């Protein structure tokens, strides 16, 4: 005899979100299973410390669990999840700034395993950008968000977002220029 929960892995996301809103923990666990990779990737690009990225991702999902009942429409889940992730990251930056830059990453903390050279190089290049610039660049290139969406999400003026992305992309391009000559990257 199969339980309804056995079918959760095949359920559409909207259905799982609706169930999670009613307090169904199994449905929420399935959502976490599906979304953890994208949130952890976003946090890894933002903070360049994979342990910290996992801690922040856990905070994100905890906030989502506590607030999911207030989510009005299940279809809005992905955008809301991203908003929570960005707000957790911004809170972390503010706390770090309040401590006078304690825990500021230098790139040396990056793990030397489980990642390709390109990922490491990207993370090392990203770590050289200021926090706000890095966030705008990651949201634009990693999450594929428009400038307007980033401005709305981060509460920064549109002009500032545009200039952050332009400057950040130029710096990244210089730091990653070696990959411009590799055919496999150019073709992807």
């Amino acid at each position, binding site marked *: 005899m199969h339980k309804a929960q056995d079918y959760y892995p095949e359920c559409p996301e909207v259905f799982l979100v609706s169930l999670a809103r009613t307090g169904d923990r199994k449905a929420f666990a399935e959502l976490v*299973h599906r979304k*953890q990779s994208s949130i952890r990737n976003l946090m890894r690009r933002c903070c360049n410390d994979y342990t910290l990225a996992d801690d922040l991702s856990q905070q994100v999902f905890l906030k989502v669990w506590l607030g999911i009942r207030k989510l009005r429409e299940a279809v809005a889940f992905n955008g809301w999840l991203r908003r929570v992730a960005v707000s957790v990251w911004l809170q972390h930056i503010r706390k770090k700034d309040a401590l006078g830059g304690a825990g500021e990453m230098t790139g040396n903390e990056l793990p030397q395993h489980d990642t390709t050279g*390109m990922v490491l190089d990207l993370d090392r290049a990203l770590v050289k950008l200021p926090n706000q610039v890095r966030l705008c660049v990651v949201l634009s*290139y990693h999450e594929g968000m428009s400038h307007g969406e980033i401005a709305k999400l981060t509460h920064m003026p549109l002009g500032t977002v545009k200039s952050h992305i332009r400057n950040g992309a130029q710096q990244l391009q210089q730091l*990653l220029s070696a990959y411009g000559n590799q055919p496999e990257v*150019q073709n992807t």
Partner: protein
Amino acid sequence: MITDNQDQLLQSVFAEARQNLDDEAITSRIMAKTRRVLYMLAAGVLSIAVVLAVGIWLIFGMPLLEFAVLISQFLTMTLIDLGEGWLALVFMPVNNIASLVVVTAKAIHLGWKKVLGGY
């Protein structure tokens, strides 16, 4: 100024970096935390409720009891005097102020729903 080719290069590098990370027990860690939060919330609510109940009982215990007795006496007052025969016994559940309050509340609720179109 960044060119389209350079922009595409960055996009491809970011796309390459988007790894499919496996669970690594993160889901179970998150779910354990959610369980802990639920227990803490429940314990907090229960503690506050107990403290409030004890406090209220200590401060207003007897006056509250007297008030409750007064209210119950008022609500069970008969609307129409039917004497002490079988008719009074039959109509006893509805022949009181409490049933009048319930019927009035229901009527107001229905009227409100009608005015607001079901909402």
